């Protein structure tokens, strides 16, 4: 996979992940072009399209579009399920995930994505294992928070 973009129906970019080195200018150009192209498509159309020399796989969940760019030999259907599994992970973590979760907890969305996909390839497909990793991190945070609170309590 070359990159993944999450954007809203209004065309606002919510999350971007690039697995190939590109300049900021190129990233912006690609984003603009793709958001336009995908938003212009009608609901019943197929989820794949050729774009430049890449294949775009996208799916809409409520107000958010999840859009992946894959290379010629990559499998479209399994990419569609990568998207779905990512949404499931977000959903399980946040509980009925919605666009605002991703806006305001963007760092969690990135951390979950990093556990699931790394370097553009699927790293771990088990929902349990991915969430376990994030949970462990959260536990560390909790521990830290407790210490922190104690401190402030003491002072």
């Amino acid at each position, binding site marked *: 996979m070359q990159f993944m973009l999450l954007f809203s129906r209004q065309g606002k970019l919510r999350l971007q992940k690039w697995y190939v080195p590109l300049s900021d200018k190129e990233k912006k150009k690609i984003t603009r072009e793709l958001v336009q192209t995908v938003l212009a498509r009608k609901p019943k159309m197929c989820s794949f399209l050729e774009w430049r020399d890449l294949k775009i796989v996208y799916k809409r969940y409520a107000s958010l579009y999840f859009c992946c760019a894959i290379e010629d030999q990559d499998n479209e259907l399994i990419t569609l399920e990568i998207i779905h599994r990512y949404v499931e992970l977000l959903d399980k973590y946040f509980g009925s995930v919605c666009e605002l979760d991703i806006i305001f907890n963007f760092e969690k969305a990135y951390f979950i994505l990093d556990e699931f996909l790394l370097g553009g390839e699927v790293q771990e497909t088990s929902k349990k294992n991915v969430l376990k990793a994030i949970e462990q991190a*959260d536990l560390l945070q909790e521990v830290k928070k407790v210490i922190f609170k104690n401190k402030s309590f003491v002072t």
Partner: protein
Amino acid sequence: MLQLSTRPGRLYLPSLTEAPRQGRSLLSHSLPSPAASPLFHPRAPHNHTCWQKRGLQPPVAPQHPERTQKRHGGLGLPAVLASRPLHGLEHTSPYFCKSKEAEIKRINKELANIRSKFKGDKALDGYSKKKYVCKLLFIFLLGHDIDFGHMEAVNLLSSNKYTEKQIGYLFISVLVNSNSELIRLINNAIKNDLASRNPTFMCLALHCIANVGSREMGEAFAADIPRILVAGDSMDSVKQSAALCLLRLYKASPDLVPMGEWTARVVHLLNDQHMGVVTAAVSLITCLCKKNPDDFKTCISLAVSRLSRIVSSASTDLQDYTYYFVPAPWLSVKLLRLLQCYPPPEDAAVKGRLVECLETVLNKAQEPPKSKKVQHSNAKNAILFETISLIIHYDSEPNLLVRACNQLGQFLQHRETNLRYLALESMCTLASSEFSHEAVKTHIDTVINALKTERDVSVRQRAADLLYAMCDRSNAKQIVSEMLRYLETADYAIREEIVLKVAILAEKYAVDYSWYVDTILNLIRIAGDYVSEEVWYRVLQIVTNRDDVQGYAAKTVFEALQAPACHENMVKVGGYILGEFGNLIAGDPRSSPPVQFSLLHSKFHLCSVATRALLLSTYIKFINLFPETKATIQGVLRAGSQLRNADVELQQRAVEYLTLSSVASTDVLATVLEEMPPFPERESSILAKLKRKKGPGAGSALDDGRRDPSSNDINGGVEPTPSTVSTPSPSADLLGLRAAPPPAAPPASSGAGNLLVDVFSDGPAAQPSLGPTPEEAFLRFVCKNNGVLFENQLLQIGVKSEFRQNLGRMYLFYGNKTSVQFQNFSPTVVHPGDLQTHILPTKRVAAQVDGGAQVQQVLNIECLRDFLTPPLLSVRFRYGGAPQSLTLKLPVTINKFFQPTEMAAQDFFQRWKQLSLPQQEAQKIFKANHPMDAEVTKAKLLGFGSALLDNVDPNPENFVGAGIIQTKALQVGCLLRLEPNAQAQMYRLTLRTSKEPVSRHLCELLAQQF
């Protein structure tokens, strides 16, 4: 806080109305609510409890500003900070700003604030640093540029608090730039974390390397990561991250990743118990093995056994790796992908197991689905499509190929658009396999229907692609007519591609060329704007080269031009063709010369400059073809609108043509304005264009193609000389009046003796050839297929060829003998007038040949009819700035298509008698040029291609042979007899064939061998 509630107006602004929608659960109805599964949420008190209800209640509901604040710690606040009330964070809510300007204003204010915090005297504690870095990230993700804060983020990396470290890494991953001082600091922090032996920290560090993937990081860590990957004590999660991290570094800079003894251990990760480790490792191996297939060869059997275990497992066996009842779909797809890097397994047992797997997958496709969820069918079909890809890749199991084709055929009518799309796409590759081409063709009606009825343009495009791929001589007419019909309503975005495809199919599968001409003229009529220069140049080339279609073409364009509104491209084609071949229809009073002229001239004033320039050339050609139009045309040329035209090109043409027509004698006119010689045959520029279109950034590539002069130049790629460089438009050169003459093929009558090493006058003399003259070299190839065809001080051309029946394949090797790069290197195959072989260069040759390097060109040859003159190879390139060019005969002679035939003496004599007409026999008596050695003679005759028949001729000294020449159109039986006379040092050679010219030609060819 107070501030916020005093100006609530800002918060209600239009974008707020979107909040309820944005707050809708992404997976509504599909998953249990979080309340039902609190398992994963005990540790996240921050805002989960309150966000849950957001589905109904906008988080920033205007009537409860205070409550909102309490819950979220301020709007737009990244949640990581939400656990503690913070001051001034309301400024980070530009998301809800009214206008772009207001948002920018607010952001700038916030940025100024953060900047002052970072620059302030008071040292920030880790928490505040994290807070501000996180804010910066948030602002960046809203689409604003961030140019500071990197240092603070780097500081966070060395924090021992996990969340601070994590935010630091996230900032680096998202916002890294190659600031060299920072990179060193970042690398240092990463190094520490990698060495920490804390798996969570190690993973963070590995993720960061994988996310950034820069060369600097590669240099710092490429050597360490393989160690971590194969270390016995690495945690599974670390191994996974290390594998994909290494993959990313390898993709970025392969030279930095050292291969070593770890490679063997990586392959064995395929056997790992942890499925996640296997999933990550397969991706890495798939990438590495492409470069070093042999190092990773052992992965084949491991991958097959892993795949077989997955495919045969029950849907519950793999627990959390089962996805909607499909066992490990991601891993299966990756394993099938890996196997596509290799040919079919050599080991019969492994192969058997694999074929079993593939069959199981195909069988499962027929089983009823275990779930109605689309995820189930997607995962299942993802494996199925990957399996079919593997079957197509192997292209060796006819049975599986046909089954795959049938399966795809079912999908062609599936109600899921996605599946129809993929089936069309996949069938395209299946169409090119000889085993399944016919099976694919049976779906033609469905595909045509898809082209007509699919509502999604991307699916229609796939259908058009598939029609193009399944087209052959048997269905070309149907497919071309369907595509033409589709073109009338096709989306503008794909019209040009369809035009190119129709043009190519029409040319490639034309049985009669009048159909081809009709098709192209139809193209211009239906989609004139999308018919590129390449397409209409091509029809002119073909009409010029084939005299059997010229009259028809002239008649058809004449009729087409009579339409009240015809496309300018039609005027161009019409103008050119009538200028060349208008005389062929001039006998008919309805298309007499004056009628032709006035028809063309009626379009003149509406046309662009380029077309008018072309028409002026047509007019001067008319003066030559039809002297009776001279006065009228001179009148037109003399008109002030021409002679004083503001356009310098038109003016110059008018002046020159007028003078030419008044001063030159009829003979001179006839010579200057002679019919164009045949164009050299070369790879269809349309095909090249289609390939370019398919390439990256199709749009820009197209424009480049138009600018590239060599791709437009149909005159045979003549180097532009200073005198022609100023040509204002490519079409102005069409008639070749101004440019250097094209490298005309030699007239057939000049015979086999003249070989051209033709040198353009503007270049230095070509280097004389070394060794045998090209003519001698060519003759040597009559009886052999491999060797050196040409050699001089610059260039060596080697040939390897093989022929079977009426087909042949020839590899040409061009070696640069110098140490200087050859530029604009372009070898093209040229046909003399009576072309009866078809040569399709299958691959374009690189335009540059480095010093000492060799490039290869492959030609596929099909012999359509018997032919006499060999095709010509013309090679052009620039050596040290000077254009070089040479033309050689390609060693393709009619005898290459000989099939030796064994027969008994009786049969031989019977056939010999049957071919007794005087014109069927050719005989030559000639002096031996080489020592007369029976063994050598035998070898030559066998090399010539005929069978040698023993015990036929009563004189054992004589040689008798028989064979059949295979061409597409017909077979020519040949009998030959060679009688050496050692005393006189003479031979007598007699050939009898069923075709007179073949007898003479073979006799000529063979006689020169002894």
